[in-house]
Every structure is written in structure tokens, then in C-alpha cells.
């Protein structure tokens, strides 16, 4: 496959593999691409290719108070949830990677579990509990739920960052008389900062895209963007959904660019959340 691929058979084979890979990449981006022309459709129903060009759906998106409220809600829920997830995720990563805790692997698996478990299970467990204490339809309810499922993302990115350098730096600081907080503030945090930021942004984008928990735990006044999109899809399928997506996707990509800038090795770290299953 590498230097040895000289015979015609191997050359054809590797060309075939490359072709397959390109086809798969097209398959991968096709759905995202189809949204863009659709968002400029002049039709009031879902038709592709659209019969004409118009910006009417962008106008109705901009004028829609439902979307304004939902975007505001998504921010009001996503930002606090990601903050909680980040603080707790960093604490958990420090404890598991640096601390002397028993059952390290089991703990790591437990912390990551909320991300991996089908959300519908958590949703039907959280609903009656939150109903009892009056958290359904409130911001704190959904914020806490999102914090639990996004904490693993921060845990994973920060654990990876912690494993990238030796604990001797911290030991040195401690020996020089720094207390644990100062050690964290001046030694550990600068080293793991990219991991923390990437984790935070992953948590934020995850919350922005989460549907199942939002469906169960928010009310029409606290509903998030994915829930609004979902309700619209079930009410009347118009291209406004496509216009909203293009706007929101552009925003997401901008956020991700920020994430890429945040860490020098950010590009490689993009793969990390998926690695999470390894603990």
C-alpha cells in the first residue's frame, strides 16, 4: 500500500480505495450542501430543486419571534450548562488523572457514561424527578441536565491535555511552596487551557444541538432551537428551517474556528471526543 505499491493491480486497487474515499466524503457533505439552495427557495413547501430564488425565508427567519426566543433560550441554557460542565469536568479530570483515587477506570467510565447512554433513558428518568421539585420547564432544570451530559466532553479533552505533560511541573511548584490553588492557577491551567477551551466549546455546541432532553424538560417558553426546529418539522415543512440552519451553521462554524485558534494542536484534538470511549 505504501512504497511497495508498484504492480498495476495494487495501483488500481489503491486508486479504487481513493475513489471510494472521495465518494464517501461527498456522501458526507451532501445533506449539508442541499440545505443552502433550499434556504433560498421561493416555494412555500419543500421542493428540490426550488422553482425560484428568493430571500423570503431569511426574512421570515429574521422576523420570527419564535426563533429569537429560541436562540436566546439556547444561549441561556447552553452557556451556563457548558460553564458548569467545564468547571466540574476539569475537577473530575484533575482528580482522576492526577489524584490518587481508587477504581480510576471505573470512575472514568462512570463520568463518561451520560454522554454515551441513549438520552431517551435519561430523559424519562429526569422528567418525573424534576416534576416533583418543580424544575420542568425551568432554565435550571435543562441546564443541569445538559451539564451532566456535556461534562464528559470536557473531562475527555482535559484528561487528554493532562496526560500530555508530566506531573513533575506541578510537583516542582509544590516543592517551591505554592499551594494547590496557586499551582493550578499558574502551572496546571496554562498547560491545559487549550483542552479546557475546546471542551467548553464542545459542550456548548452539544447543548445547542440537543433535542431529546429539551423535548422533555423545556416548555414552550424555554424551548431551545433544536426543539423549535423539530416542532416546525412536525407542523409544516417550509424552507424557513433551511434558512435558520444556514444562519446557525455559519455561527457554529465561526465558533469552531475560535476553537481551532484556541489551541495550537486544536486540529488534532477535534478527534478527541470520539476517542472518549477509551476513557
Amino acid at each position: 500500500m505504501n512504497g511497495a505499491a508498484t504492480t498495476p493491480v495494487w495501483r488500481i486497487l489503491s486508486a479504487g480505495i481513493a475513489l471510494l474515499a472521495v465518494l464517501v466524503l461527498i456522501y458526507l457533505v451532501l445533506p449539508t450542501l442541499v440545505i443552502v439552495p433550499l434556504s433560498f427557495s421561493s416555494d412555500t413547501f419543500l421542493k428540490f430543486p426550488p422553482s425560484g430564488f428568493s430571500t423570503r425565508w431569511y426574512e421570515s427567519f429574521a422576523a420570527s419571534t419564535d426563533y429569537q426566543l429560541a436562540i436566546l433560550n439556547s444561549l441561556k441554557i447552553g452557556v451556563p450548562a457548558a460553564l458548569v460542565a467545564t468547571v466540574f469536568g476539569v475537577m473530575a479530570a484533575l482528580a482522576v488523572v492526577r489524584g490518587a483515587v481508587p477504581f480510576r477506570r471505573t470512575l472514568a467510565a462512570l463520568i463518561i457514561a451520560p454522554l454515551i447512554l441513549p438520552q431517551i433513558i435519561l430523559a424519562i428518568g429526569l422528567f418525573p424527578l424534576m416534576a416533583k421539585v418543580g424544575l420542568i420547564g425551568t432554565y435550571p432544570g435543562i441546564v443541569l441536565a445538559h451539564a451532566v451530559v456535556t461534562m464528559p466532553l470536557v473531562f475527555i479533552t482535559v484528561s487528554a491535555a493532562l496526560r500530555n505533560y508530566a506531573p513533575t511541573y506541578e510537583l516542582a511548584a509544590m516543592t517551591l511552596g505554592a499551594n494547590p490553588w496557586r499551582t493550578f492557577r499558574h502551572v496546571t491551567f496554562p498547560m491545559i487551557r487549550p483542552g479546557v477551551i475546546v471542551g467548553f466549546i464542545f459542550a456548548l455546541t452539544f447543548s445547542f444541538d440537543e433535542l431529546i432532553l429539551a423535548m422533555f424538560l423545556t416548555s414552550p417558553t424555554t424551548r431551545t432551537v433544536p426543539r423549535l426546529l423539530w416542532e416546525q418539522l412536525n407542523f409544516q415543512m417550509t424552507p424557513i428551517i433551511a434558512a435558520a440552519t444556514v444562519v446557525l451553521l455559519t455561527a457554529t462554524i465561526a465558533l469552531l474556528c475560535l476553537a481551532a485558534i484556541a489551541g495550537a494542536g486544536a486540529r488534532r484534538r477535534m478527534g478527541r471526543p470520539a476517542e472518549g470511549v477509551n476513557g
Partner: protein
Amino acid sequence: MLLAAPLTLLALFFLLPLLTVFGQSFAAPDGPLGTYARVAGDSALRYSLIYTFQTAAIVTLAALVLSYPVAFLISRAQGRWLVIGMVLVLVPFWTSAVIRSYAWLVLLQRRGVVNEIMLALGLIDRPLRLANTDLGTHVAMVQIMLPFMILPLLSAMRGIDPSMLRAAAILGANPWRQFVNVYLPLSTPGVGAGCVLVFISTLGFYITPALLGGSSPMIAVAIEQQVSRLLDWPLASALATVLLVLTCALFMLYERLNRRLAGAGEGR
């Protein structure tokens, strides 16, 4: 000390809900195992469970086969090509699953893009039914799951030292042998991680089957229906418990395999 806060959050908003689901599943009027008896006795629910695992297996296998060459290519890419490759994988990854399911609806409808292209190419002479069929749902699900397979594969492949292959080549192995005996085993951790991730995520798939599924009875859709349409929390909880136990079992099995592999790999 550091663990106290995160573990409290987990205990209250993760473990307690799971216990609630577990407890609810036994709260049937017809005896504690009543709901499980109903799951076992209801052919529609039984089929739903089987169908869900079948779908997870199909989607995982398809995603693996399609992802491997892509991950391989990107892992070898340098500079600009690497960036392009990563962007092509990550943009769909960050596009909402609600939206991608909607896009698939546009693509797969009878007068949709896929049918039009195949008609134009003369591959078919009348439009195929793709949306609201198992095939269409699988095509959409695989696409949504691909990044979850590609990314772990990629991180495993990036870790493979190309000199290993060269060494094999020097020792006279043909490309096939190099792949089977050297490359494939070295990429196994990525394959394992990707498969577990995709399999478990597919088990909980809700959006795509609910929107595109036609008659596909994925278990998450069935659970949601039990709760919201039939108001049957015990039955929904029993289904969720079955799903929970199977997911945990799979995850533990994987962890064990992984640990053994990691142990075996320690020598190198």
C-alpha cells in the same frame, strides 16, 4: 475532594434518574414484573427491540466499511489536504441531526435529488421509493454516524508509524500482507472505539427514524410514544431498562476487550 462536586452532579442528575427509570419499570398494577411480561408478550415491542439491534449492527458495519478508506486517506494527508479532509468530516459532524435528517428527506423523496440523478444517468427508469423505507433510513443514519467512526479511526491511524509498514515491505510482505498483518492490527483500537460508539449511538437513535422512518420501529421512538401518546411510564421505563442493561453490557464487554488489548500491546 475534587471529585465531590462532579460526583454529586452525577449522582443527582444521572444515577438517580436511572434508578427512577429502574424503579418505575416495576411499578405496574399487575405485579412487579408485569411490565416485563408485557414487553415479552407483545410482539410489536419484541420486534422493536430486535429491529433496533439489527439496525445498529447494519449501520455500524456500513459505517466501518465506508469510514476505513476515508480515515486512511486523511491520516496520510498533509497540509492543505489534511485541513480539507478534516473540514469535510467535521462540518457534517456539527450540523444538527434534526437538519441532516430533514436534508435526507429532501434528497431521498420520490422526486428528490438522488432519484433525479439516477434517472438522468439512466441507472433506473422510474423513481425508486427511498424515503420512508428501511433503506433510506439506513442511508441517512450511516451518514450521521460516519464522523463517529472516522474520528476514532483517524486518531488510531495517525498513531501508526509508517516505518512499520516499510519494515514489513523490506521483509518481503506484499501490500495485502502488510495491511492484514501490520496495519489492520495496529488500527484495531480505533476500529473498536468507533464500532462501540456508533453501535451504542444507533441504539438510541430517535430523530432520523422518527422523521424518515416510515414504519421503522426503533426503540427510542417506541419509548417516546409509550410516554407521550400512551402515558404508559412503567412500560416505557421497562423498555428503557432493557436498553440500558444491554448498552452497559456492551460497553463493559468493550472495556474488557480493550483492557486486554492494551495489556497485550504494552510490550511494544
